[in-house]
Every structure is written in C-alpha cells, then in structure tokens.
C-alpha cells in the first residue's frame, strides 16, 4: 500500500526544498551554447530549458472525458499535430488518444491532481514524465535551416508553423518538435540520455552560421 501511495503523489507538488539539488542533462554545456550563438540576419541560438513539467495523458478521443481533462487544465483539447495553450502551459497532441502537458513548474502545480479527478474511473492514464525529457530551445532566423539539416520533415511555414508539433527523428534520435515562435523559434523535447547527442548534432549544424 505504501508503494501505491507514492505513485499517487503529485510529483509536481513534491516538496523540493529538502530534496537534493537537481541536475539537468545539459547544464554543463551552457557556456558552449553561448559560444555557438550566431548573430545577425542568419543568426541562431541554442539553449536548454531544463525542468519543464511534463505529464503524459492518455485520454479516450472525442469523448466527454477528454473535454473534462482539458477543462480541468484550463486548456482546450489540441487538434491533431497541434498544440493548445501557451508556452508556459500547453497541451501537445502526441497521438489520437495521447497528449503531453508541458508547463513551467509553477504553472503545473496541482495539474496531475486536477487531471485525475477529471478522469475519475474512465479509461486512460496520467503519468508525470518530467524526468523523461529535457527541452532544447532553438531560435533565430536560421533556426529552420539548422533543423532541416537533421530532420526530414517539411518545416516550411506552409507545412509547419507556430502551434504545430510533431514527433519525429532528429538525426538518429526521436524528439518532440514544437514551433513556439515565428522567428522561427522551436522547442525540442528529447530524452535525457539522447540530449548530449542532439546538442552535438545541433551545434555542428549551427557552426556554419557562426562568423569568423
């Protein structure tokens, strides 16, 4: 029973004051990202956005329950391959019955509890997967060119624009790609153990835009 109780705990609400300091997968590469920043009309910059809260939600599609779950989060159900909400708190469409809530920590408090009370006894699940992935943020006029080197998706604005998300291969790793701004500006959610690989790949792709 103790174990069951631990699972029920809202991780986003766990008392972090007493916990050991957290480490993000790419925290030691911040200076490297700074140095790789390219400015100007063909500029691009990369940084890590660590510790975003992520909840994986399995909800029956087109159902009163999915409406209730979205409402409990104060968001609208995302359309296929789209994101609803804003950068600080958003629902990403991952599949016909699967969403990912991505939110800043302070805006995710109570989210898991709210989802669970909306789900009640309906089929589905809600799991805190915040530790699964870290987030890379790629921005600047050349950001799309950088991504196009490692991704086979059509990222032209006519096919992929602000508020779109996709799960796809970047290089050899699976990632969730989400365009957050028209600059263009992208968030790339990648498994922690693949974060170093993806950072290397993107830094290499960014190198040509760095002058001098």
């Amino acid at each position, binding site marked *: 029973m103790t174990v069951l109780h631990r699972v029920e705990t809202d991780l986003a609400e766990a008392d972090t004051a007493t916990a050991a300091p957290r480490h993000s997968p790419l925290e030691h590469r911040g200076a490297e990202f700074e140095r790789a920043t390219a400015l100007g009309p063909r500029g691009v910059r990369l940084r890590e956005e660590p510790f975003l809260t992520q909840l994986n939600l399995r909800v029956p599609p087109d159902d009163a329950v999915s409406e209730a779950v979205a409402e409990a989060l104060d968001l609208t159900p995302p359309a*296929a391959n789209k994101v609803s909400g804003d950068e600080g708190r958003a629902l990403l469409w991952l*599949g*016909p019955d699967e969403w990912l809530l991505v939110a800043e920590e302070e805006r995710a408090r109570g989210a898991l509890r709210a989802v669970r009370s909306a789900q009640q006894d309906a089929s589905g699940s809600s799991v805190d997967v915040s530790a699964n992935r870290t987030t890379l943020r790629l921005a600047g006029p050349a950001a799309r060119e950088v991504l196009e080197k490692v991704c*086979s998706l059509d990222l032209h604005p006519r096919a992929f624009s602000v508020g779109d998300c996709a799960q*796809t*291969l970047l290089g050899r790793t699976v990632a969730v790609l989400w365009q957050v701004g028209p600059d263009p500006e992208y968030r790339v959610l990648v498994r922690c153990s693949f974060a170093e690989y993806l950072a290397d790949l993107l830094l290499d792709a960014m190198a040509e835009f760095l002058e001098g």
Partner: protein
Amino acid sequence: MLLIRCPWCGDRDEVEFRYGGQADVAYPTDPHELDDAEWGNFLFVRANPMGALTERWVHTAGCRRWFSVVRDTATNEMTPDIPRRRESR
C-alpha cells in the same frame, strides 16, 4: 526510401516505421484443435503475392500507432487499407 503516410502524422520517411507483416492474420479460435501442420501454417506461412498485400506498419519514431496499408509489392505503391470486418477462419 519510401515515403509512408501515417494516418495520424502524415507523410514520413520509411526509417520512422517498423514493418509488422501481413495484416488480418486471425488467431485460431481454438488453438488446441489444430494439428502441428496447421499451427505451423498459422505461425509462419504468409501470403507472398506480386501485387496488392495488406500489411501492418507501426510509426515507431512518431505517434507509435499501428495501422494497415495495402502495398503493391511490385511497385511499393501504398494505399490506405479500407477497414472491414475480419474474415473468420
């Protein structure tokens, strides 16, 4: 490389998918009634036409959903499978 249309994510490269073999291979109603030859037939023997074959694919690097398509094994041309009732055997 094939460009495969995932019913959920749209057109994606073949490397994002895994192949699941022939579709609509029904599990025997009562496996105990089968003799070894019939059981072996169910496990291993698949259609191998030169032409249309209904297949299972999974979009592993995307939405991770299984779906069926009809692929022409000679030209690799794919068309969406029209869902229909499985024939019982």
